[in-house]
């Protein structure tokens, strides 16, 4: 009971911190830091306590911690919202609180807390060098809300509350990607991220609605742990030959495609690098993109209903597997040709998410969940590490331009100083090189993260989870998925080696890199912490039949996470081909990469560009997807909105019709006036008046006003009358 109550409390501290910072805390940067980080620490402690409780509970899958309250009355029924901790949410919670905490702490250093504000800095633009971020408090407010959204999503026991957390994260990603909104590119990126994910979200909303209509509930337990409900959904036909379960599954999966940046909605994620680096880590590791995978893992029973392990995939699963595998390969090819240190990581995120999606698609629930956890740790590490690199580069740039400025007076400085004076892109890997000497801590932690990403055997977490996915693909009899994922793994190892080689090895290729220096302790601490997890997290899921070390450590992931399903998935027998493949691709890719990019001099061009020629351009331009979408969707939509709907339909057709009616009425009125009012009605009135006037004019001559004339006339008439009376009458 108390644990149930504690679960409710997990998401709340960051929300309260958000409110407190917004309603006054923002006045003090120090207070904001304490509020945000303190709240996150409370959530972290609560989360770990709940996780510990969950791990100690027997049969947690069948008896999860739940508690709910009625929230939204819908006619005859009421939607209840509540919290749920089952194995899946427990391990998700585990990595979310750790990575979030690491990112929060890292942000303090990243935003130069405690430094004075640089007078040149303006809100909405990144600080020039060394000064505290002008919108420091706002950053912590937003990131707290972000954490609240993710924690809500993880602990929710129903789809509606999950959707609420989901959308709040959407808002936060919008705000944080556009945190430096003073840059035009950031403004574009924030809108792009929001709209692209919203495409998936509206499908997901339909999925929610359809699910509620079909089952009368949105509670995970009631739907997903009830075979009758699932079977009924699987047997009800919907459209296009899909069962209702398949349709709902695909609609929900569309949400994942948007949120986890799967092809074809992957375009927003690389642009999301416009945000500060902790945000990138937050989005790409701890929260946003994980949420999408979490959703399909959560709905795994619904997505796979009607599928027997080892049997042919259902349509829904096939779609998921194909999109996942394709995305994994597709994104890794792009990553090979990127030069921006964060963009490489962005595409690697898309690629790794593709792995997880593909794993769900082929029914490898545990493998996908395992990779989700390990990926969160090592990708957070990589992003924070790259942030540390960029931070160091920016400092180096500031330092070099300062020294150049000092060298300037008097005589012309050396050519190098002059060059250093030019502003170089602090994120372009071709401006780096040799940073391992200047930033050793960053280098070694980054190396651990990179090796984990590449799946360096045995010692890194990434190896175990990725190997698990590969062996599942192999074991489930999905050779195509297996080959595609293996190819992607090769490329992953290659571009990771390229990235490490370009960034840290060789000699510095710019003055900024020469002057770069190690980041502060508050930034390095999270790196160290995350690198520990990037190694150790893998040990929790070693296959018990693995040669030599199998069984030495219990396969915790398999046992614990597997419980989340009604039927505990049977562990696949161990097989050597996938292991060998993963060894070969990982080591081969890494070796190849190190060979090529180990020691490139200043001003070198990418050897890959020489070898691949136009293909490299295609890759560097990301297969022209942005341009394609712009041509296919964005511009037609603008045209439709501005020209068709507004200018044509509303202004020309509807208003034109109205104005036509108006003009016709005016014309009719005019005609009535001219044809009837004026001649007939007015004419008659005028006629009476005119006739009277004419008569008066005619007769007025006799009205001379001369009394004598009147008298004479009177005399005449009297005479005539007398004559008549006297002469004629008798």
């Amino acid at each position, binding site marked *: 009971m108390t644990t149930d109550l504690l679960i409710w409390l997990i998401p709340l501290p960051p929300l309260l911190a958000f409110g407190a910072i*917004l309603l006054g805390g923002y006045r003090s940067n120090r207070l904001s830091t304490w509020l945000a980080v303190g709240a996150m620490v409370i959530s972290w402690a609560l989360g770990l306590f709940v996780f510990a409780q969950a791990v100690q509970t027997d049969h947690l899958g069948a008896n999860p911690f739940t508690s709910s309250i*009625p*929230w*939204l*009355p*819908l*006619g*005859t*029924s009421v939607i209840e919202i509540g919290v749920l901790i089952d194995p899946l949410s427990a391990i998700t919670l585990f990595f979310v609180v750790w990575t979030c905490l690491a990112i929060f702490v890292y942000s303090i250093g990243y935003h130069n807390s405690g430094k004075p504000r640089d007078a040149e800095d*303006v*809100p*909405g633009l990144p600080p020039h060098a060394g000064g505290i971020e002008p919108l420091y408090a706002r950053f912590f407010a937003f990131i707290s809300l972000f954490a609240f959204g993710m924690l809500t999503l993880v602990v929710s026991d129903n789809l*509606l509350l999950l*959707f*609420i957390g*989901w*959308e*709040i994260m959407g*808002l936060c990603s*919008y*705000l944080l990607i*556009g945190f430096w*909104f*003073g*840059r*035009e590119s*950031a*403004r574009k990126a*924030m*809108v792009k991220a*929001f*709209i692209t994910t*919203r*495409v998936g979200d*509206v*499908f997901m*909303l*339909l999925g929610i*609605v*359809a699910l*509620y*209509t079909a089952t009368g509930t949105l509670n995970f337990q009631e739907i997903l742990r009830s075979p009758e409900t699932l079977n009924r959904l699987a047997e009800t036909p919907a459209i296009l030959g899909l069962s209702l379960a398949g349709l709902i599954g695909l609609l929900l999966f569309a949400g994942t495609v948007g949120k986890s940046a799967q092809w074809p909605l992957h375009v927003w994620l690389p642009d999301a690098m416009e945000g500060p680096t902790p945000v990138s880590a937050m989005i790409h590791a701890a929260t946003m993109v994980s949420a999408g995978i979490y959703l399909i893992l959560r709905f795994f029973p619904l997505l796979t209903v009607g599928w027997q392990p080892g049997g042919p995939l259902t349509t829904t699963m096939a779609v998921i597997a194909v999109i996942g595998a394709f995305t994994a390969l597709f994104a890794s090819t792009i990553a090979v040709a990127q030069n921006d240190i964060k963009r490489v990581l962005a595409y690697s995120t898309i690629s790794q998410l593709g792995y997880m999606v593909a794993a769900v698609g082929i029914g490898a629930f545990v493998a996908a969940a395992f990779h989700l956890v390990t990926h969160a740790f090592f990708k957070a590490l990589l992003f924070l590490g790259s942030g540390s690199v960029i931070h160091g580069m920016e400092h180096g740039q500031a330092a070099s331009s300062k020294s150049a400025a000092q060298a300037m007076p008097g005589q012309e400085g050396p050519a190098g100083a002059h060059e250093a004076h030019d502003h170089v892109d602090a994120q372009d890997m071709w401006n780096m090189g040799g940073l391992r000497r200047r930033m050793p801590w960053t280098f070694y932690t980054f190396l651990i993260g990179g090796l984990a990403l590449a799946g360096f055997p045995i010692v890194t977490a990434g190896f175990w989870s990725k190997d698990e996915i590969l062996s599942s693909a192999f074991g489930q009899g999905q050779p195509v998925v297996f080959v595609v994922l293996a190819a992607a793994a090769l490329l992953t190892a290659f571009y990771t080696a390229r990235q490490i080689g370009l960034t840290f090895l060789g000699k510095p290729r710019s003055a900024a890199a020469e002057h770069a220096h190690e980041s502060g302790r508050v930034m390095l601490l999270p790196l160290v912490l995350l690198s520990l997890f990037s190694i150790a997290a893998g040990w929790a899921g070693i296959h018990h039949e693995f040669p030599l070390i199998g069984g030495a450590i219990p396969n915790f992931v398999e046992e614990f996470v597997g419980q989340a399903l009604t039927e505990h998935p049977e562990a696949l027998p161990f097989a050597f081909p996938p292991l060998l493949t993963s060894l070969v691709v990982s080591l081969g890719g890494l070796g190849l990469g190190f060979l090529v990019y180990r020691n490139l001099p200043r001003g070198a061009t990418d050897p890959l560009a020489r070898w691949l020629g136009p293909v490299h351009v295609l890759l560097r331009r990301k297969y022209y997807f942005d341009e394609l979408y712009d041509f296919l969707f964005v511009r037609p*939509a*603008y045209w*439709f*909105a*501005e*020209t*068709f*709907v*507004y*200018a044509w*339909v*509303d202004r020309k057709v*509807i*208003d034109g019709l*109205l104005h036509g009616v*108006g003009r016709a009425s005016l014309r009719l009125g005019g005609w009535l006036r001219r044809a009837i009012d004026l001649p007939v009605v007015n004419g008659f009135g005028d006629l009476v008046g005119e006739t009277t006037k004419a008569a008066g004019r005619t007769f007025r001559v006799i009205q001379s006003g001369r009394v004598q004339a009147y008298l004479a006339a009177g005399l005449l008439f009297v005479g005539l009358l007398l004559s008549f009376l006297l002469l004629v009458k008798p």
Partner: protein
Amino acid sequence: MPFLDAHLLTWILFTPALGAVVILLLPADRPRLLRWAAFGVSLVPLALSLYLWSAYQPGLPGYQFVERHDWYVNISSSYHVGVDGISVPLVLLTTLLTPLALLISWSIGERVRAYMALFLFLETGMLGVFLSLDLLLFFVFWEIGLVPMYFLINQWGSANRSYASFKFLIFTMAGSLGLLLAIQLIGLAVGSFDMVEITAIWPTFREPFVLAGLPIHLSVETVKAIAFWAFVIAFAIKVPVWPFHTWLPDAHTEAPTAGSMILAGVLLKLGAYGFLRLVLPLYPEQAQLYAGALAALAVLAIVLGAFGSWGQSDFKRLVAYSSVNHMGFVILGVAAAAKAYGTLSAGEAVTAVDGAVLQMFNHGLSAAGMFLLVGVIYDRTHTRDLSAFRGLFPLAPVYGGILLFTAMASLGLPGLNGFISEYMVVQGTWPVFTAYTAVAMIGLLITGAYIMKAVGSVLHGPLNEAWAHHKLEINRREVLAIAPLMVLMLSIGVWPIWILRVIEPTVLRLFG
């Protein structure tokens, strides 16, 4: 308070009008006094409706606080007022928005006395529609509201105001004409204008029509269908449903800020209220028959309204078009209820109507808030052109935060009010009109696009240096005016039961 209880609705209804008369007696050259007097007067109905809200008992069937007096005895029309769960939230909305709109009208500098008086008259007109239980009374108030609004746009509007006010008036009058005829038809046929009686008799009315001794040689069904469409068109113009919506962007854009707030916040609700109060109860069969057409129009309103909004370069016009989009959801809910009425999926009808009523309330909050914010920025910059702003967030952080908040409520972000009602409408509509609902999602997507366009153009991007030395921040009075709206948006989004508790029992009784 027995006396207050017995005449509560009359007090609510006529205090603004009385206040308007008092204002007309005050000296015209003391704008400060006039503003505060009008604001003070408008607080009285607000206080009374808060009391009404607390005293209203959702569990009881039928109308409450009913008051009835003879009025036009000769044609059996009476002064009959009462409230139920559909009208109580709307009364509260009206009495809440009026003081806030008056508070934002401080920038009105000329003919303050006439402005304030007209505004209070307008409030009486709008409240009358929500309160009256007599068709003729309903129509009278329906028309009364039109006149002050016309003058508010025509006298205190911006550049193109005479065109806009004329369009507004003519459009609405065109609808009212059919409405009046249909009301007379029903009144003569039933022999009463009392809504309670008519609702009981009219839906099953089967006798041939004899009007003034002239038998109309049309079947009862045809006459009813014609009357149905007369009602529908009158209300559809007011809502407005596509394609009767083009008066709205013009009127909203040209009206003064407070006028736009009331237009979007309350006047549009009159039409939707008419659908719920009159069209569905009086014409269940016709409504069921034509529900598909209505749903199609609603979807067109949602989708094309959103696109129309997206296509604007004028901030205020963009917000105005968003009303078409949002009110489309109300009508979609109504259409679903009409289709599902009396069938097995009546539960969906309840959800859809619940959502529609809540959406009316929510749109009242968010649209009024958005117009208020447009007004605030317009006051300072004297432009509404979106391309003229750019990057104002650092100059007006509080304003920016409030704009973001309100825009998100308007967009339907979960956790704020818009989501609850849109979800309920979609949930209720999906089983009834699956395909339409799916198409309406395009509108939801584009809603995101136009909100982003507005917010992004005003707040984000490189600062437009033209404003660098302007004072753009929102002032305390304006914050005070929007704060109640924000509190309501958040409270409905987080804990919707407090308002659904009032709406739902009535809807359940009417459509369950």
